[in-house]
């Protein structure tokens, strides 16, 4: 079989091969298991790079398409339909990139039931990549729901003391949203007799009032996943209780599935409703930005703080997407990547200190920079990235988003972007507060004096992220180039709809 023909399938299902290998390995040979998992995910990453190499960045439509009939259900053809375009290519790469890093980060953190942990982790990767690559809504939904299961186990088995509560809450919240989406998907399938996203977009012609309902149904799923204010309450629990690698993937990739969903489905499928709802979505996004930032500051637990910061950051993403102009959407997509990198890194960082001290209360730390200079320096960079310091990745995304939202016709008022920009101030407050609580001040606790700086393995997990933090911050052009044409196409579609609305 020609490898290039089915490259997307390979990217998606390579981890399954790893799972199969893992199944037949003895469960007490932990290092062997870990190596197998890491290598598998590395191979998946390598394959995704092959995908990137084949990606034609001047082409706005789907590429490397694989389209096979899967099964037919009551006249509805359901397809195995994978494809990648500018909207998803970076997210796929982010997923395959973060997975090996997360697995490496668990090397010494997960000592129990290693085999199952790795299996679930690789399965999770399958689900996530599948979500980003599916072009058939039904297939998308399968992957979408499927990601719930391994994540549920990751939180529930290897999580913190309240893991069960958090896991169930995570599962129920996300499922609550997605079942509404399921109904909308069904409605689409019945009405248009197709689940193929490109076909549905091409067909168009969903009447306005119906668009409203469908938009809301899809939005319910995505908004919970993002999570948008006020649907965010599962997030702190899930994050705090999840094991480090779980948090990394949760923040790094899973949340992006929500924003990606808006991008892939809500905007092109229901353009008129998107235009109508843009101000409201922007409002919620802005509330989320401010609210998340305000709440983050009051936290005592580092992970809580980072979790709430995600609410704030993803508010930016949503704001950008619903600016419905190239600037906002491209910024939004890039910001998804940025958030994946910087928040992923932050969770890794929290995990490292937790592994050493078994506490995440910020009051238990202070002055760590003295004993852990490398750790401190890397944390500083990540912190700065997260608060959007120009020259680092976060800024590029945030700026594009804010600029896009500021001039957005759909949102209609620059006030939203103005308030969101104030969120930048608040980001500085809570991020610096965190940094201060952990690293600055006197080193006055005896337990902290003997803490060892991070080791080579841990540095190796962080450095790739930091490299991208700088790269995107200083030279994001290659990234924007990948996104650009597809976004332009989407915006053109939205503009056509905008003419129709007015």
């Amino acid at each position, binding site marked *: 079989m020609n490898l290039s023909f089915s490259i997307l399938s390979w990217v998606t299902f390579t981890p399954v091969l790893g799972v199969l290998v893992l199944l037949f390995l003895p469960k007490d040979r932990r290092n062997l298991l870990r190596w197998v998992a890491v290598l598998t995910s590395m191979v998946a990453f390598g394959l995704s790079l092959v995908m990137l190499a084949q990606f034609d960045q001047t082409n706005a439509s789907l590429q490397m398409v694989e389209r096979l009939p*899967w*099964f*037919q*259900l*009551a*006249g*509805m053809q359901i397809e195995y339909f994978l494809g990648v375009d500018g909207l998803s290519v970076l997210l796929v790469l982010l997923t395959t990139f973060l997975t090996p890093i997360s697995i490496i980060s668990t090397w010494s953190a997960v000592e129990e*039931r290693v085999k*199952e942990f790795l299996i679930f982790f690789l399965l999770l990767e399958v689900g996530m990549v599948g979500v980003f690559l599916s072009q058939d809504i*039904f297939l998308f*939904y*399968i*992957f979408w*729901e*499927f990601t*719930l*299961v391994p994540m*549920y*186990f990751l939180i*529930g*088995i290897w999580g913190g003391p309240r*893991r*069960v509560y958090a*896991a*169930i809450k995570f*599962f*129920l919240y996300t*499922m*609550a949203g997605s*079942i*509404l989406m*399921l*109904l909308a998907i*069904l*409605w689409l*399938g*019945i009405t248009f007799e197709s689940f193929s996203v490109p076909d549905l977009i091409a067909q168009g012609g969903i009447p306005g009032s119906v668009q409203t309902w469908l938009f809301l149904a899809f939005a319910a799923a995505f908004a919970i996943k993002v999570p948008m204010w006020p649907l965010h309450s599962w997030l702190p629990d899930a994050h705090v209780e999840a094991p480090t690698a779980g948090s990394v993937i949760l923040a790094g990739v899973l949340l992006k599935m929500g924003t990606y969903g808006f991008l892939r489905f809500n905007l092109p499928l229901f353009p008129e409703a998107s235009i109508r709802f843009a101000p409201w979505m922007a409002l919620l996004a802005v509330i989320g930005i401010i609210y998340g930032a305000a709440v983050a500051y009051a936290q005592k637990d580092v992970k809580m703080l980072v979790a709430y910061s995600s609410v704030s950051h993803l508010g930016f993403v949503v704001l950008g997407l619903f600016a419905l102009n190239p600037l906002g959407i491209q910024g939004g997509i890039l910001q998804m990547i940025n958030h994946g990198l910087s928040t992923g890194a932050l969770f890794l960082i929290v995990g490292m200190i937790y592994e050493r001290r078994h506490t995440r209360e910020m009051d238990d730390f202070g002055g760590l920079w003295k004993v852990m200079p490398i750790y401190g320096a890397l944390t500083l960079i990540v912190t700065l990235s997260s608060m959007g310091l120009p020259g680092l990745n976060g800024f590029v995304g945030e700026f594009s988003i804010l600029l896009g939202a500021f001039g957005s016709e759909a949102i209609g008022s620059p006030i939203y972007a103005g308030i969101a920009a104030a969120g930048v101030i608040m980001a500085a407050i809570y991020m610096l507060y965190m940094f201060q609580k952990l690293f600055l001040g006197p080193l006055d606790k005896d337990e902290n004096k003997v803490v060892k700086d991070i080791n080579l393995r841990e540095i190796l997990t962080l450095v790739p992220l930091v490299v991208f933090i700088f790269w995107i911050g200083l030279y994001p052009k290659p990234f924007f180039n990948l996104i650009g044409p597809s976004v332009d196409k989407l915006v053109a579609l939205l503009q056509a709809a905008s003419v129709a609305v007015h």
Partner: protein
Amino acid sequence: MDWQDFLSVLPFIIVAGWATILLLVDLWIPANRKGITAGLAVLGLIAAIAAVISRFGIEREAFDGMIIVDGFSSFLQLLFLGVGLIAIAQAYDYLRRRDIERGEYYILLLYSLSGMLLMASAGDLIVVFLAVELLSIPLYVLAAFAIPQADSEESALKYFLLGAFASGFLVYGIALVYGSTGTTALSGMVAAIASAETTPVLLFIGSGMILVGLGFKVAAVPFHMWTPDVYQGAPTSVTSFMSVGAKAGGFAALLRIFISALPGAAVMWMPLTMWIAALTMAWGNIAAISQTNIKRMLAYSSIAHAGYIFMALPAAATPEVAPEAVRAALFYLVTYAITNLGAWGVVLAMEKAEGSGLTIEDYSGLGKKRPALALAMALFMLSLTGVPPTVGFMGKFYLFRAVIDANLIWLALVGVVTSLISAYYYLRVIVVMYMRDGEPEVRSEALLNSTIILTAFGTFFFGILPGLLIKMINQVGLLDLLR
């Protein structure tokens, strides 16, 4: 009446006849080797399967319309026979463990199966009634199989009294329908209703009382209250069989009567079935939450699933949707059968000889002790919740499709919201298995394991590739009466 007529009821004849023969054979089989009886029963089932398959695709009426052979009946018969195979495999070790192994178990099981087979191809209300009784009476006895254990007694008594009570409604309903249409043949009823020679009110309340009777069989709210008690008290292998078989049998009759014989009255029964479906889903799922005994929990779960399947009825009231609604119901029945049998299989593996090991807490630590078994159980729970990529999701998807197609969006909403609620208690089983520590004692027995493996594989396989099953359902030309 010719030899073709006999071919039409051949599966029934094989199973019932084989049961009767076995009854005699069993006398010669020593008490400690009843496995032979089980094996022989299996042979009979296989022969019946062959019989069903051999006449697959044939559509005809036999015995003056008493018997209908069509895709619907063949498909369901295959399902019943498959369920029967698994039920025998599940019972074998369990009966020994509980020290209630008797040859009659398998014989009664075959008789009950024969009732189900008859139900699938019933073309007359008289046959429906007899089939209901034929499938129920052996079940009453099977539920009492562990007598003098108190739970078994209580289960059997409740099941029997309420079953007979419901039969009263069924018979009276049939009588009224007969009075209204002048016939009990389903085809005759269609004709009578079409020619407006009916008394609508009689027809309505007659069908209403039939609904009560069959609603009892499938455990629809508010006729469901026996379910948890009976499921809990009956020997688990019986529960497993009856939770799938009896329910599928009831639905076979419901679908046959309401969709193919009474479409003319759809306006009337549509809202009613809709409410029953909604109530059943809600009640079953909500009540399941507070259960601590896994058998009761699964009992409520089976009530809830009856609610889901019930949705096919109101959906089928829209004529264009009817074929798909029936197919969806059939698909869901398969889904439910595979998943539920699997789940009960795990319960069987967990149950100790003295009948303990049945609380959900007893599953603590199963994930560590028996990862494969726990994984299978997790798969079943997820499938019952309706999470992809399991067959349970496909089933729900198909059903919701029909419901939405019939424009019953609010009903679909109830469906999804209640399946969300169901996630809560299904997940709890997973939580207990994986996230709590414990030292569960588990049986590991080849036959039982193979059923669990088989169902788990089916749960997963049809979740990924439902196309095979769907194709099969599509191929069976449905309900010739519908045309």
